[in-house]
């Protein structure tokens, strides 16, 4: 069973990359990116999340089914967000 697990150095390297990404998040927030700021910040967050999922949660080595379940949860949240925003972003400005 342990043969399937990553080595300690893989975990350590992943942790280092995660910290680098955290620093990047802070640096990016100090730079004035305007409307792109949340996009970049969330993009970095997504990168962190993917690393945690693939390496720490062993999704890299998990069954196709487990990966499907993980993606399904995320996908369904996207459905909730997207169709809700489809309403909010297409409302005409109020008369007041």
């Amino acid at each position, binding site marked *: 069973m342990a043969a399937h697990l990553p080595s300690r150095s893989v975990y350590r390297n992943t942790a280092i990359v995660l910290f680098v990404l955290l620093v990047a998040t802070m640096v990016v927030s100090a730079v004035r990116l305007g409307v792109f700021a949340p996009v970049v910040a969330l993009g970095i967050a997504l990168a962190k999340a993917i690393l945690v999922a693939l390496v720490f949660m062993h999704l890299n080595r998990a069954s196709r*089914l487990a990966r499907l379940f993980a993606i*399904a*949860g995320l996908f*369904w949240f996207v*459905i*909730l967000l997207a*169709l*809700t925003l*489809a*309403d*909010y972003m*297409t*409302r*005409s400005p109020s008369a007041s």
Partner: protein
Amino acid sequence: MTTAGTLALPKPSYLAAGWSLRSWFLTLDHKRIAILYLASITAFFFVGGAAAVLMRLELATPESDLVTSGVYNRLFTIHGTIMVWFFLIPSIPAVLGNFLVPLMIGARDLAFPRLNLLSWYLFMLGGLLAVGAIIAGGVDTGWTFYTPYSTTYANSAVIPMAAGIFISGFSSILTGMNFIVTVHTMRAPGMTWFRLPLFIWSTYATSLIFVLATPVLAITLVLIGVERVWGVGIFDPSLGGDPVLFQHLFWFYSHPAVYIMVLPAMGVVSEIVPCFASNRIFGYRFIAFSSVAIAVLGFLVWGHHMFVAGLSLHASLVFALLSFLVAIPSAVKVFNWMVTLRNGTIRYRTPMLYALGFIGLFTIGGLTGLYLASLAVDLHVHDTYFVIAHFHYIMVGGAVMAYLGGIHFWWPKVTGRTYSEPWGIFSAILLFFGFNLTFFPQFVLGYLGMVRRVAEYPPEFQVLNVLSSAGASILGLAYLVPLVYLTRSLIRPPSVGSNPWNATGLEWGTPSPPTAHNFDEPPVVTGPPYEYENPQAVASQEAQNG
């Protein structure tokens, strides 16, 4: 079976494997848990039904003379919340699903028996809170809890009711988790996905909805509670909140919830029809895929409940189009059942009568859904009795009939006893008649403009209301009669063989009732399901050969 020379005592059935209260209330046997659910949801059905009786009595006259409007508001809220969350949603999955899923796939139990028992206790805890809310005076917000009325202005027991629904939601989630993992990992050797009974496909699709939709309801109920207790405005316009956001979150769950209620019913019908038509089901894969399609597409249409709430026109068009699409897989199923019947030799037994009733009434309900999905028509009939008739045709004419059909079909397997067939046929016909008399007039009422959730109405609507109330009394009777003869059937000891209906499926290979562990050894599946030999087909084949 036994080695030569030794005597093997037959194992006791799961019913006889322990008589103490402990053996029932701490059971890990999925079959006993199914029985626990059967008892509880039946009780809740009559609570919700009592509210309906009072409502229909009130509605026999145009004035609110039996109850005040305030009390009437509590009645329809109780009716909706109890019937939706404490009867319909658990009914087929938690009773028939819990009992049959392991048997149908050849397993000894579900993947997580302790979580299964926990799900029943959570259901009961939630139900207790809901009943407590009723005793504390009830809730008057409607089962939909629209804000800001439910969060700011309602003076009723919103929090206990919301808490009860919240807790029972976790019961649903655990059940869904259990079914999904069980079907993926515990199928018997040879039981490939396309050899699964269609009831399993439906239950699996339902479980996807349980797991993905219910958490959003849970967080929405938390937000109602926070807003109500804390006095902050998440959905309150006077505090910068948006009531439509509540509706988005609420309906994201509550629309798929209606598929939780109908998909298992379709699964039951897919089991009953081939058996009592002695015919292989037509288009197995289409029916299987349509179950998953309904589950997935059902998540994309929730906005059709909000066409008049302030949704943008763009979003309304998108939701309307998607709502039309979701009707297609349901229609596929109806066509396939019809073909199976057409080419079969039909036995008009009680389960089949309920299944036939389902097909007809669900079709009417489903078609009227298309009316509602059309923006222009919905503007006219939204919040009228047209909507009420639509969803009762599906939930009562459809889901409840299928539930009763399933109860009758598997009654011999679950209890080892047979019920009185003449009474069964009588009840099914009585129900069909009473149901239509109750709800068909409501389509007309809604189209003529009678709004829903009112105790008073214009006098010109009285005739149709009286017809509806008369129908309701017949409907009520049709529910009481099975309660009596099914209970009576339990007086005699078990006497039924393994397969009284000559049905296919692994559950029919076990004793009636099954032993605690279902199978001594895992059965091996070697062929497709529904291998029925249609006498009509056999006869015509023989005529051709001879």
